[in-house]
């Protein structure tokens, strides 16, 4: 699905050759500062490589319209920004960028899935770190992406919620036959849910392991 060839980004990332397969759950592990987040940002064109080439679905990434690409390759950052409005406004805003009409019912169902008990009218700026992260998760899961790239979607959650949320994300991806590329700090999480494990160190790919 993604093929990276001789990709360089500043002094942060230097990838010779990497393939990310479609329909799989790919987990990325590595020390902080290894270049994991940079890799994800390259995949949905939030940044562009200084050198090299990234191909997505047989077409060069640079030939994609960035906005259209981001509607297909959906990125969830480690610390997503929550709009200082209600929970509903947050969900509606994301949906409006994708020209999607979502009902209150759909939104409520999504909140339930991410274990958020607050109502749609709740002020999103008053959510705790973990709750905000789950809202951000609900926000991207409302969208009809093909690939989800997530930067530690459970970093602000306790172990129990983390397991719950990750299994929910994985279910969502599998049920809809999507692809997931996820950074995780825990190899245990990667091994439990992942199909492929990519290890990154000092901006380079140190190993690709099949976990299937």
């Amino acid at each position: 699905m993604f093929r990276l060839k001789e990709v360089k980004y500043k002094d942060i990332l230097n990838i010779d050759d990497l393939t990310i397969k479609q329909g799989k759950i790919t987990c990325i592990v590595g020390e902080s500062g290894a270049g994991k987040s940079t890799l994800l940002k390259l995949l949905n064109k939030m940044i562009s490589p200084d050198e090299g080439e990234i191909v997505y679905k047989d077409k060069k990434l640079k030939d994609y319209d960035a906005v259209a690409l981001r509607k297909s390759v959906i990125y969830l950052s480690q610390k997503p920004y929550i709009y200082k409005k209600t929970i509903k406004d947050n969900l509606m805003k994301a949906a409006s960028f994708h020209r999607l009409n979502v009902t209150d019912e759909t939104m409520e169902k999504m909140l339930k899935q991410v274990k958020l008990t607050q109502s749609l009218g709740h002020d999103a700026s008053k959510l705790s770190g973990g709750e905000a992260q789950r809202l951000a998760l609900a926000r991207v899961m409302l969208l009809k992406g093909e690939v989800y790239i997530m930067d530690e979607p459970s970093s602000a959650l306790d172990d129990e919620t983390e397991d719950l949320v990750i299994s929910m994300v994985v279910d969502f991806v599998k049920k809809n036959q999507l692809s997931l590329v996820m950074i995780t700090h825990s190899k245990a999480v990667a091994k439990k849910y992942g199909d492929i494990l990519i290890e990154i160190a000092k901006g380079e790919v140190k190993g690709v392991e099949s976990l299937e």
Partner: protein
Amino acid sequence: MNNDTIIQLSVWQVLFGYVFVVFILWILNRRGIKREKTLILATLRMTVQLVVMGLLLTAIFDNPSPFVTFGVVLLMVGFSVLTVFRKFKDDLTPSLKKVIMLSLPTGGLIALFYFVFIVVQIEPYYNPQYLIPMTGMIIGNSMTGLTLGIHTLLNKFTDQKDEVIESLVLGATPKEASHDIINQAFDSAIMPTLNNMLGMGIIFLPGMMTGQILSGVVPTTAIMYQIGVMLGILGGVSLSTYIFLIFGYKTFFNQDSQLIDG
């Protein structure tokens, strides 16, 4: 103008006005506020600039010519653009400067020409007695409004950077991601003019109207001009800011719809 009803001021009479400057100098000196130099410079510059302008306008009014009148109009517009550049110094990117060079003259001149040619219907079309003061008012106010709009746009793109990036991440176009910032910038640009209109006639009598009344124009006529010129100013501020914003926000993004780090 009706010169019969005006009390002509002699040089000596005006000199009496400078008593205030002497008085302020005394206060500054007594209290040790180090502003004497600025006060003297400001007083001198005001006097010299106005005297020169007075002589210049007299010469232009006595020999009306379309070239001279429109030359002065263009000069004023050019200076207004330069004033904006000077105010923001290094904060403006070259592409944003280009947008300002387009928006201020276009918005300001459309409002000005609409006001003088369609509303007032001046004759001849280059009548400097109307065109030059109106240019000052409309372009001057457009420049002030636009400056506020630029200030807000620059600040908000820094303060709300995370919000803009998140919207881009979620698949927004740069236009959608900048929507709120553009609205806030437009609002900040037109607010002073709107406040001015709210207080007009109750809290203060506007300068132009006061000037006309002092020159012997009947208040009802002065009011008609004031209403017209206020609407012209509102048009100039809104148009130049709007043109600036719809093109200006684009300069914050690159062709891959990424926010350019500034």
